[in-house]
């Protein structure tokens, strides 16, 4: 009966189609090619007509199509497909994703747009490119991914921040970090959670509190066209982070498991025990005479009957194991969708004792109760514990004590006291000893003169017996409501909160030198709360009128308030080493040998606000010509009352040339858009909350309260402004096999927010006033080329190459005081030169006749340092004046900031296998290798193995001067330690296998992928240090140092090389 019915129905349908001009109803399901899931919302159109229908929740469609017609299936971020109907009535289609397609959606601030509609320069990277990498924070994974975005690492301790520079360093005294906007809500711009030692101790990047697995995509606004809508915060670029959302219909649970092993890319090559003794005895004999008894001798502290030999590098650099597990659930209906995730990661670093443990949860929910209402909530909570270690800013740090330690003494001592926990430490308590590394039989002074630079701590004991923990918590949340009262019009209100709390806990053991020994045990704790709320109300309008006139409009307001409070407490003079926390009654507050109770608390509280109004109006004609204007007015509470408001306009225009008749249907050029933008943006990042005011602060004169001047303000303080221009094009060639995006940009920065240096003799606080003075320029090109290099049968090879070239020039500084250089370390901001140019003595090598070091004086004459007379001479030995700062030469064009950089990403697929090889590169910069100068010293310590090349006999040509105890003149800042920083790094090599769907469905899975990956596989560089990708001053308290001294390698911890096994399974 049923069958009969069906046949008659078919017959009926057939008749009907025949009757109605051969029209037929075509039905089918549209699925994704990769996951086989139905795709709702796909537009199914009859080619050459306006007739079209969308697919429903189950991906099904039904359309009335003429027999000879062709159906076009199109959907954002999928490759459109055309299918000739022919005689068929059922057409099922699977669409391939096209992540680089022109229909890709970009976040533009208070909205989103298809690539095709964007006139400005925005880079996009999808979340899977980020969360597949074994990094603690997503910013590290951005290296090499986007043109114009330079990512440099501060080093390889866990949670170390990166410096992200978008189209160059754009400030001198202010922060050059971009604005981060997560799901439309600007994040707190404080990057470091640590407060001790101005945040230079145990550093932890606030971005590590975001789960990389939750990231759907990252968009970076680079020019004024894209940025001006963020006005005063857009000068350094805007990074938009979009988190994942649930999709209708597809209920899914996904497990993502990564197991990794990390080890340093390279360890420093230091002297072994025998060479150490040779070198250090030679230093002493050269200075104090050949008859001087050896100072470096064998000893046997570990009691194994053999002379102690310790490879400290093997002890401080370890292989660490990391496990990172995420689970996410998502799903939804027409009315509501949700995405939820949880992550647990436990990571051990490459440094002895370093660990990071993170728990994160997120819930993103969207509801569409009616056609005119759409609301949502996004809520993420993170709880992290960072077991930090001290490195380059502490004498007891692993890379200072660890590098300097004698390889002839043991790390451990079997006779150690209980409190020393087996470590080799001299003395047992406050009365008896120092708490340093025991130095065995070595003699560290001659005739009362100490041979060592600083006394050496046991780095291992310091990492274990002391404590440097951070326990941050973070809530990132926003709720929004969209109302659509008219077609094309949406009213949005959105409120977001970024709440960061951190407990920073430092304990110094009384058995170790330094604070613990001095204070009879010391606990120092910081409680930090950073609260930022942000409220936005805006309307958006998008309608096409009379088919050809598309009008888009956005206008609104935003209020943001930020408050930071920190409270400090400490405890000293503990009753017993048993106590290592602040416990009532367990401590006296009095340091050993002192009588007064130390004030054990402190803190600060400050806040600032931002009031903003913005608008954006766009007009597109016939999908060919478009123009857009944006405008924002911002008022920041920190600025002077006279200039609190900043106004930031921009204009951008685009022309889709390929829509013109002369290019339409061109076989070579499928798509070509020429675009340009011009506008103004501002920067106030890093400016103090009350920077414009003249202030007195509470200050203590011993126990007496007092007030003293703490800041000279400037009522005219205002925004640093940047005039950005950009011209570029996007092009697709050869059936979209090649896509190219290229830009030229020129950014003029005016009214630099400079901590303008004032003569010391004027005597004002900090000898500087934050002033809008000076100007600077960043100019460059960037290009991205995506290609399908090969696609045949089961094999394909696609690649993505990006390249950026950027040049900076300082145009003007403090003219009133003669445009003098602004100096940070051996780098300067100098008019007419690139920012952060090196300025130092020119090294002239080692005199083969006597082994003395030589430099060029300003007049080109070589001056030589006579070790014996301790005087400068000319090369012939005649007397001359000492080198002075006038002999320090500008190293023209040489800065620490790369002038070119980029990435080259290749994906090969064969059947179910995929191989990804990602290369990053950067160069044109110079690194100042302080590690080397510090490790080639003449003090009594371990040295870099290169010191074996030292001068020993007349006529010997070498680059390392004669050894001469305690004389480190040869190591003064000079081009001797300035090296090229160019490198190319095989950042990622990963091999994955995706199981067949049919196969895994037997196991109850909808997908299963396994992969193996090497991260930081190897590096090609001529740099002699352990890692060219370092920036030791990325956490410096002064932004001037961060912006200028970008290329210093000061005992930086190298990047880890990570081997990862990953499994991704969905149900």
């Amino acid at each position, binding site marked *: 009966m049923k069958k009969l019915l069906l046949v008659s129905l078919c017959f009926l349908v057939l008749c009907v189609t025949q009757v109605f001009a051969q029209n037929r109803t075509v039905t089918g399901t549209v699925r994704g090619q990769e996951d086989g899931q139905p795709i709702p919302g796909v537009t199914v159109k009859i080619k050459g007509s306006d007739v079209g229908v969308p697919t429903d929740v189950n991906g099904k469609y039904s359309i009335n199509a003429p027999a000879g017609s062709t159906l076009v299936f199109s959907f954002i971020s999928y490759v459109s497909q055309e299918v000739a109907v022919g005689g068929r009535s059922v057409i099922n289609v699977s669409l391939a994703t096209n992540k680089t397609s022109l229909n890709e959606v970009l976040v533009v601030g208070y909205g989103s747009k298809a690539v095709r509609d964007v006139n400005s320069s925005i880079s996009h990277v999808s979340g899977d490119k980020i969360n597949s990498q074994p990094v603690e924070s997503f910013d590290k994974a951005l290296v090499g991914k986007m043109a114009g975005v330079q990512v440099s690492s501060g080093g390889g301790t866990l949670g170390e921040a990166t410096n992200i520079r978008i189209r160059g360093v754009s400030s001198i005294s202010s922060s050059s970090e971009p604005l981060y906007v997560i799901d439309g809500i600007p994040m707190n711009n404080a990057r470091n959670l640590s407060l*001790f030692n101005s945040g230079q101790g145990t550093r932890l990047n606030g971005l590590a509190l975001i789960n990389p697995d939750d990231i759907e995509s990252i968009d970076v606004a680079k020019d004024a066209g894209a940025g001006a809508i963020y006005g005063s915060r857009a000068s350094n670029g805007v990074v938009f982070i979009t988190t994942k959302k649930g999709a209708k219909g597809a209920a899914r649970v996904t497990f993502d498991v990564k197991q990794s092993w990390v080890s340093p890319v390279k360890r420093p090559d230091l002297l072994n025990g025998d060479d150490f003794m040779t070198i250090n005895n030679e230093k002493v004999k050269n*200075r104090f005479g050949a008859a001087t008894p050896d100072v470096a001798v064998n000893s046997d502290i570990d009691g194994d009957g053999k002379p102690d030999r310790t490879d400290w590098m093997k002890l401080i650099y370890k292989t660490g194991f990391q496990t990172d597990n995420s689970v996410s659930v998502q799903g939804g209906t027409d009315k509501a969708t949700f995405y939820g995730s949880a992550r647990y990661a436990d990571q051990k670093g490459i440094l002895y004792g370093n660990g990071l443990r993170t728990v994160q949860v997120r819930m993103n929910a969207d509801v569409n109760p009616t056609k005119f209402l759409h609301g949502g909530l996004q809520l993420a909570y993170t709880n992290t514990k960072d077991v930090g270690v001290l490195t380059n800013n502490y004498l007891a740090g692993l890379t200072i004590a660890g590098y300097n330690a004698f390889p002839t003494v043991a790390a451990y001592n079997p006779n150690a006291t209980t409190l020393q926990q087996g470590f080799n430490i001299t003395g047992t308590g406050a009365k008896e000893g*120092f708490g340093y590394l025991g130095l065995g039989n070595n*003699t560290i*002074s001659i005739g*009362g*003169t*100490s041979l*060592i630079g*600083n*006394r050496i701590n046991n780095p291992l004991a310091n990492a274990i017996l002391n404590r440097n923990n951070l326990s941050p918590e973070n809530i990132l949340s926003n709720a929004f409501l969209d*109302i659509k009262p*008219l077609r094309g019009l949406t009213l949005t*209100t959105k409120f977001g909160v970024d709440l960061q709390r951190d407990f920073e806990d430092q304990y110094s053991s009384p058995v170790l*030198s330094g604070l613990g*020994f001095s204070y009879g045990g010391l606990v120092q704790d910081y409680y930090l709360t950073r609260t930022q709320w942000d409220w936005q109300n805006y309307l958006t309008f998008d309608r096409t009128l009379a088919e050809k006139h598309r009008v888009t409009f956005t206008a609104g*307001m935003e*209020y943001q308030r930020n408050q930071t409070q920190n409270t400090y407490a400490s405890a000293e003079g503990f009753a017993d080493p048993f106590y290592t926390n602040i416990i009532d009654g367990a401590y006296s507050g009095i*340091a050993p040998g*002192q009588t007064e109770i*130390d*004030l054990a608390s*402190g803190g600060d509280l400050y806040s600032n*606000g931002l009031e903003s109004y913005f608008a954006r109006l766009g007009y597109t004609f016939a999908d060919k010509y478009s123009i857009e204007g944006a405008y924002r007015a911002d008022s920041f509470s920190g600025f002077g009352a006279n200039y609190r408001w900043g106004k930031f306009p921009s204009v951008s225009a685009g022309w889709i040339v390929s829509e013109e008749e002369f290019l339409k249907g061109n076989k070579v050029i499928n798509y070509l858009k020429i675009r340009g933008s011009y506008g103004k943006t501002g920067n106030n990042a890093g400016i103090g909350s009350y920077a414009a*005011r003249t*202030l*007195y602060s509470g200050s*203590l*004169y*011993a*126990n*007496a309260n*007092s*007030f*003293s001047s703490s*800041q000279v303000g400037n009522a005219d303080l205002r925004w640093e402004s940047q005039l950005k221009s950009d011209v570029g094009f996007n092009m697709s060639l050869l059936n979209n096999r090649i896509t190219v995006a290229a830009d030229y940009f020129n950014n003029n920065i005016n009214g630099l927010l400079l901590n*303008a*240096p*004032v*003569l*010391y*003799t*004027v*005597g*004002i606080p900090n*000898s500087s*006033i934050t002033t809008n003075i000076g100007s600077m320029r960043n100019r460059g090109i960037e290009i991205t080329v995506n290609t399908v290099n090969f696609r045949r049968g089961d094999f394909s090879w696609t690649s993505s190459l990006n390249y950026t070239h950027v040049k900076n020039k300082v145009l003007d500084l403090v003219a*009133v*005081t*003669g445009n003098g250089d602004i*100096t940070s370390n051996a780098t300067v901001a100098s008019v007419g030169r690139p920012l952060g140019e090196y300025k130092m003595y020119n090294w002239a090598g080692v005199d083969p006749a006597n082994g003395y070091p030589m430099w060029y004086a300003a007049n080109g004459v070589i001056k030589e340092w006579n070790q014996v007379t*301790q*005087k400068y001479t000319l090369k012939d030995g005649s007397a001359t004046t*000492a*080198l*002075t700062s006038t002999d320090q030469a500008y190293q023209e064009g040489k800065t620490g900031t790369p002038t070119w950089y980029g990435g080259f990403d290749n994906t090969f697929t064969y059947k179910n296998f995929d191989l990804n090889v990602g290369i990053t590169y950067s160069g044109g910069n110079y690194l100042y290798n302080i590690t080397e100068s510090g490790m080639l010293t003449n*003090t009594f310590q371990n040295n870099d193995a290169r010191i074996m090349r030292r001068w020993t006999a007349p006529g010997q040509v070498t680059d390392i001067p004669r050894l001469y105890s*305690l004389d*480190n003149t040869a190591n*003064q800042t000079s081009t001797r330690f300035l090296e090229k920083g160019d490198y190319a790094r095989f950042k990622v090599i990963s091999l994955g296998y995706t199981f067949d769907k049919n196969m895994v469905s037997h196991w109850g899975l909808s997908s299963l992928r396994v992969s193996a990956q090497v991260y930081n596989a190897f590096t090609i560089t001529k740099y002699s240090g352990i890692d060219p990708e370092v920036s030791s001053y990325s956490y410096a308290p002064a932004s001037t140092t961060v912006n200028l001294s970008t290329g210093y390698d000061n005992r930086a911890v190298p990047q880890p090389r990570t081997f990862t096994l990953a499994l991704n399974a969905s149900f």
Partner: protein
Amino acid sequence: MKLNLYKRSAVVLTTILLVSTTACRKQLYQEPVDAISPATAFSSPDRAEKAALGMYDQLQNINFFGGRVLIYVDVRGTDVNPPSYFNPLPQFVTVSSSESFTAGAWQGAYRTIGECNLFLKSVASSTGIPQSKLDQYTGEAKFIRSLCYFYLVNMFAQPYNFTAGATHLGVPLVLSYSSSPFDPSNQIPRSSVAAVYNQMENDLLDAENKLPLNYGDPTFYDVARATRGAARALLARLYLYKGDYAKANTYADKIINTAAPDNYTMNPDPLTTFRTFTTRESIFSVAMNGADNPNTNNALGQHYNPDKRGDIQVSNEYVSLMDQAVDLRFKNLIRTQGGSYWTSKYIGTNDWVPVFRYPEILLIKAEALANLSAAIADPIAIGLVNSVRARSHAAPVAPLTKADLITAILNERRIELGFEGQGEFDYLRTGRGIPAHSIITAQAYGSNYVILPIPKYETDKSPILKQQQNPGY
């Protein structure tokens, strides 16, 4: 129906927004809670008093009188081994104008001077402060300013008697607070050494008149704040450096003859002064507590105490000046650890920074008298030296000639005042170079590198200072 809903929701939303945005907007512009305005700081006599103490807070500057300035003078003398941490300061010839310790000292000194100048300017226009208080504040400001200039001029310029009439270059004299810091008028040239000394002398004579003998607070302010005794002590030292021995003698006498209860004495044990900071042996010290120097690397106790950073060791030469068996300055003030000598004068971060102690006044008088006498050794001077020695149980000295006496006094100054910021000065002001010691070669009197360069930071910004840079730098 639907239209109504749109309308209704739009009205409701608009109302909510209008009400709540106004409330939120207020929060954006909040007045600071962590600092006050200059007007507030001088708005009442109570607050002005705290602003006066703010000058001392600035005097605690970590690169200057927080203790470092004493170290800078001593590491260039012969009583300590050249510490590598302070390189290149102890090595003389390798110091350059971009060297950071030098710049820090210069900046620290002028910052303190700036605070004094600002205070003088601000307090003059505040109301309700009694004249006696105004006088006292003026005296304090001028004393602190002079103390800074005294160290500046002796570190950055050749000693007073380097030229006849001290016409050689001193340091810039900044005597008022600039309200336009970038103005070229701030590019003040170096005054002659004579002019700097004259300014200090005038300021100190005014301060002597205006400062109280005591603050009625023997356990803190009487040592921690400038007193008449402190002004006189600096005057005595200043005249001694000038070679105006008669006046040095006069001002030393004024201190020695101060009537009870404001008279000064020596403690029976030299250690006492360095543990109990407010005995009558201390005339003026920069007070410190743990909170002034939290987590510090810069306190005297950090650098000198082997249990702490301990990067400055006492030299063998210094120790050999004493009879180690009896002299309390060895027995109680020197410790041996790890085969090296260390001073026990400073042990922690709470140590006050000694500026004037009574024994120095006795030795100033002795030196003045010794120089004033014709040829023979002045017996009163010998008595004064021996009184200082006797306190520490050292055997008396009995020099016969004037020259021997002066040598004995200078020796005694080294022993007694070691590590208190006189090391290099005592060589230079007496026309002597720095002898070779430890690994350091001899530095001739009057040579370029015995004085420090004007920081490059400064000469870059002031063409006049660039021309006036010390020779050799």
